[in-house]
């Protein structure tokens, strides 16, 4: 459109056209202002603060890389990071183990499919904080559901406090997160399944391929991008986990379930070591940006196809 204006109109119109285009800047200005003030500036500040000793009150002082050196010796942070990765791997496997069968179950329109899909998805629209509060009640030893029910059914000799030791507490969180997130992952996987041409599957059936062979040779390769997306969303979300560990476990028992974000929160807003918190944040940020770059690479269009 712009080029037509240039060739068919005198120079005066050309200036008018480009002036008209400048108006676009006004339209995007509010958005840019928000992003600069509340994102770009804080991001730059994080980098700067990480090089300073920065208490909540009083003057901050430049300390160079001291905060980063301190991180190397901060075994509690590395334990938190280790726990975060462990949690991420376990919960991602668990989510996929539930979400993939559900996606296959609701993929094709059959009677009542929409109703089932809605039911599976309901927990996903509830917030993480609400879900955590809900489960902290269900998991409570005296007033909750699971321990008293197990006791009443005679499965346990006395009421077991599920949140008192690491293993049951950890797996309770996994159960809660799978309940909350599986529906979401299911929808994403469903879009991938639906994008596979039906005639491809039918041709494979005619060629005598069994369901397992079809799944491996057709479904999985053609779903590569969707799988990568669901995987990255789950991994990134889990690495940033905070709400459920803060609300249900308070990082316990014995600080064994402190996640990376939880540790940064403690350093920054409980101990008020803002500079050190910023340096920890930079480490987290690098991990997440690296993940995003992997994501972009995994989601690239296959060669020759566009």
């Amino acid at each position: 459109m712009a080029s037509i204006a240039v060739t068919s109109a005198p120079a005066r119109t050309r200036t008018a056209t480009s002036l008209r285009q400048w108006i676009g800047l006004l339209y995007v200005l509010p958005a840019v202002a928000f992003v600069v003030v509340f994102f770009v500036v804080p991001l730059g500040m994080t980098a700067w603060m990480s090089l300073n000793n920065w208490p909540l009150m009083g003057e901050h002082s430049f300390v160079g890389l001291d905060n980063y050196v301190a991180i190397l010796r901060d075994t509690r942070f590395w334990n938190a990071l280790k726990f975060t990765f462990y949690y991420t791997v376990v919960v991602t496997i668990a989510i996929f183990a539930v979400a993939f069968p559900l996606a296959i179950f609701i993929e094709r329109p059959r009677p009542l499919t929409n109703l089932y899909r809605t039911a599976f998805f309901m927990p996903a629209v509830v917030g993480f904080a609400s879900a955590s509060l809900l489960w902290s009640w269900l998991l409570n030893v005296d007033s909750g559901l699971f321990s008293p029910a197990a006791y009443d059914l005679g499965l346990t000799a006395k009421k077991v406090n599920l949140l008192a030791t690491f293993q049951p507490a950890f797996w309770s969180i996994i159960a809660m997160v799978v309940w909350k997130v599986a529906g979401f992952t299911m929808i994403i996987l469903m879009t991938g399944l639906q994008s596979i041409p039906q005639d491809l599957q039918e041709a494979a059936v005619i060629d005598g391929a069994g369901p397992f062979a079809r799944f491996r040779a057709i479904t999985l390769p053609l779903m590569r991008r969707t799988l990568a997306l669901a995987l990255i969303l789950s991994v990134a979300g889990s690495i940033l986990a905070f709400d459920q560990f803060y609300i249900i476990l308070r990082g316990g028992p014995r600080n064994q379930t402190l996640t990376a974000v939880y540790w940064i929160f403690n350093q920054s807003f409980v101990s008020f070591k803002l500079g050190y918190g910023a340096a920890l944040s930079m480490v987290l940020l690098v991990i997440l940006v690296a993940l995003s770059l992997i994501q972009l690479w995994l989601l690239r269009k296959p060669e020759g196809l566009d």
Partner: protein
Amino acid sequence: MAEAMSQNRKAAFSLARHSTGIIASVLFLAPIVWTVLSTFKPAQEARQPPLPPWPTTGFSIENYETLNSFGDGLWASAQNSIYVSVMTVLLSVLVSVLAGYGFSRFRFPFRDFFFVLILSTIMIPFQSILTPIFLVLTRLGLHNTLTGLICVYVTLQLPFSIFMMRNAFDAVPREIEEAARMDGANNVTMLIKVMLPLVWPGVITIALFAFLGAWNEFLAALVLMTDQSKFTLPVMMTALQSGRFGAIDWGAVQAGVTVMMVPCLILFLALQRFYIRGLMAGAVK
């Protein structure tokens, strides 16, 4: 004979499918239903394990009343949450509709740079820049205000909603605009009268995501709102559940969780089409 066999197999398949569907549905819905039913027990009964989940000693709304007696009360936090969520919706819709239109219809210097800048913020976890956000808000005099929290929530919504809106505007044929321009419409009338009705589904989608995002957000609200009168529902309920107001009243916790969940569930059920659409847009691109 063979036909009867296949009829039987079909019926068996259908039966297996529906039993699986029903059992899985019950598993996913049970915690929600269990909680909502339990809130209507009298306080005494709500302290006991929820077996059965429905009230056995009479229907009561005592739990909701107790909830209102903690600190500034549930209603104050609910008002904060409603205000923050509604303002986040209005502001993020306004900003993203303008930006989406600008990015879609104009060619100005640095256009692609600004677009990539906004979109790339999605790569960086906001959890890692919370401390400076806190300092920026203090500098702007927005420390511990709901306005400050709204600004943060709007910024977090922008990458998704501007992406959605730009695509929505891109899908509108240019002929429509040119016809309107012939009729003498200027940029603003064009946007409001001609374009907005055509991108309406996109607007509902981003409004829905903005509401759910703001209503459910926890960490930023926990860090940025230090005054109890400014607490949103998740922060208030967590304070209550942690025993900050004395012994934990589980009946009140259930009631609070219900108040937090129900708006999300109703909005989702009413606007499901738009929600899935938003998910797909995010998933396919």
